[in-house]
């Protein structure tokens, strides 16, 4: 059903005329275009997350709720995000990265910790109080087939947030829809079509247009490309990076694909069993991973180059990710860790360090540009 013409021809962003940055509505100008890797340090702190916890209770059988337990989906995550910055969150399935995003947006109520948006606490806000903040933070979902209502036209889907926030009159909204679809590289002529008439990549663009409709400051991207074909992934990644640059957005980019995260992020956090085990500028983390889990993760990810692949030495972890419903004493990674010591089983490590933060008792000292043990070969 996907119409090849539904996407404007030409690779995304290859010199096509685009609408000016902040959209038809002249909201706050983008913080000077180069909020790139270096200049982020001075920008305003948008989002702070302190010791965020999301525990889901479950009853493991029994009629009267005996045998209750909790799944510690997110178990004490802290980070902050500056304006114009892209923070990548990586981890394997079940590590709590998606739940973290949902808890920030209050789609899942956090059970502990604090979320601050520009210094104001937004965790535990009632839906009504949360409403104004929803205009500033948006989310893009993983599954482009499930995240669009199949009974609404693409135009209605993109217009809905504007309707909810009572932005503009009807006519103007329609123009905005056209502009947004154009901005994300979809042919606006097809705004009366339904999601099932588009391919996966095109639907993901619709989801992005919907997120952009209210001019948010921050977009949480929950595995936005992992359901897409390889050739389409790059289109969406490029689109996101370009939009970020043009509109001065901040992104939290959640993915399990390490290379995609490296490509798009300024800083990267690695999650394991509901906790951040390492948080560092992308370059430092990939060049010199300090946590043994990060090292294993990086060494396990395949590189599309047979020459490099043959020379790599893999750290193959044994065992599976333990289930997050048991309380752990000590380091959660201890039972799979290749360098585990006695202390690791008793003491829970906390995230330490100034620039390159790591939660490991045995992590080496923070170095400026150290050649670490587990550096990714090649490159």
């Amino acid at each position, binding site marked *: 059903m996907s119409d*090849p013409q539904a996407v404007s021809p030409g690779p995304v962003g290859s010199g096509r005329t685009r609408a000016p940055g902040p959209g038809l509505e002249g909201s706050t100008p983008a913080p000077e275009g180069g909020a790139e890797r270096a200049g982020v340090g001075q920008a305003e702190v948008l989002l702070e997350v302190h010791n965020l916890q999301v525990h889901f209770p479950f009853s493991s059988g029994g009629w009267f709720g005996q045998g209750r337990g909790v799944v510690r989906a997110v178990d004490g995550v802290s980070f902050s995000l500056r304006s114009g910055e892209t923070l990548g969150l990586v981890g394997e399935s079940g590590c709590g990265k998606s739940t973290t995003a949902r808890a920030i947006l209050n789609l899942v109520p956090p059970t502990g910790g604090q979320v601050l948006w520009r210094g104001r606490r937004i965790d535990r806000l009632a839906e009504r109080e949360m409403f104004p903040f929803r205009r500033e933070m948006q989310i893009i979902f993983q599954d482009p087939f499930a995240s669009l209502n199949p009974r609404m036209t693409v135009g209605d889907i993109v217009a809905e947030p504007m309707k909810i926030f009572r932005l503009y009159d009807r006519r103007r909204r329609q123009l905005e829809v056209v502009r947004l679809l154009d901005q994300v590289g979809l042919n606006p002529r097809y705004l009366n079509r339904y999601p099932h008439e588009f391919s996966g990549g*095109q639907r993901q663009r619709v989801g992005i247009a919907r997120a952009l409709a209210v001019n948010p400051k921050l977009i949480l991207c929950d595995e936005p490309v992992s359901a897409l074909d390889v050739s389409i992934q790059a289109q969406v990644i490029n689109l996101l990076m370009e939009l970020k640059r043009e509109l001065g957005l901040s992104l939290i980019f959640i993915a399990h694909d390490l290379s995609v995260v490296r490509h798009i992020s300024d800083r990267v956090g690695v999650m394991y069993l509901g906790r951040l085990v390492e948080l560092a500028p992308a370059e430092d983390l990939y060049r010199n991973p300090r946590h043994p889990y990060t090292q294993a993760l990086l060494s396990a990810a395949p590189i599309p180059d047979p*020459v490099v692949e043959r020379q790599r030495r893999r750290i193959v972890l044994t065992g599976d990710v333990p289930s997050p419903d048991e309380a752990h004493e000590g380091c959660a990674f201890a039972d799979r860790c290749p360098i585990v010591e006695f202390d690791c089983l008793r003491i829970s490590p906390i995230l330490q360090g100034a620039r390159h933060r790591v939660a490991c008792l045995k992590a080496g000292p923070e170095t400026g540009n150290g050649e670490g043990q587990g550096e990714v070969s090649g490159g």
Partner: protein
Amino acid sequence: MAAPLLSVTDLAVEFSTDEGKLRAVDGISYSLNPGETLGIVGESGSGKSVSSLAILGLVPYPPGRVTSGAARFDGVDLLKLRPREMSRIRGRRISMIFQDPMTALNPFLTVERQLTEVTQRHLGLSRQRAQRYAIEMLERVGIPSAGRRIFDYPHQFSGGMRQRVMIAMALSCKPQILFADEPTTALDVTIQAQILELLGELQRAEGTAIVLITHDLGVVAGVCQRVNVMYAGRFVEEANVDDLFARPRHPYTVGLLHSIPRLDRAGEALTPIPGQPPNLAALPSGCAFRDRCLRASEMCGQAVPPLTADGKSTRDGVKGGQRFACFHPHPVPEPAGAPTP
């Protein structure tokens, strides 16, 4: 090298759908040598899975139908076998593992029952021996305390462990060929590394030839010796793994390599392939990749480019001479060395 173990010629599979007849696989040919790993790379809808299902006689009919081709294995054409004869080969001499092990394992039977069933039927083992053998196989694929866990049901295993059970099942009759259809796609990277390692080890020990079907070029680079790139039901490029990554000739292959960010490099811009994945119901005339190709010319709309080699990219005269289906292939960089992507 000996004669190929399996040679597939001109295989075509058609599906009848609402939108008419679709050619999911449109005349592909390849041969598989004993003990090698052949990669078939493609995106969704490229027909990579269907092609191997067809060889194993597993294409659902209707709507699917093998319309032409032959798959010669040990002197017989697999496509002409009756279901009974096929079932004697499938699972014993040729096995398959799937992306989602849960769909291939029966949730109502213990792993022990499913493992012993195969060996009892195909190898004629007694129940006791089959059980002992099953435990041995589970131990080999790295399932801890196999003797106890063998009586568990599939849902009691994690994703990675389930895939191991699948592999144990697929390999327990020591097949000559293993079709692995996206065996690690549903798994996390650390588990993926374990499974790939395991497959490699077992291959070295048993000399099984593997056909690895995947969309992940990283996996291909690490595991395969030869690679076929598939697009819209056809092979568009066929090469040794080194040649393919160092000197890709078909614009689609080049596009794929340019659209994946690399873990070991930073800051390289990605150049995506424009357009959308092929819609089999509405393919352009001539070369199916034409409407997404930056090198396409008028000629590409008139005829389907055949899979050919030009003298330039045949390396060392080995039989993996690189072939591509394109009228305007990417040139070979003169000094052999610096990889392009």
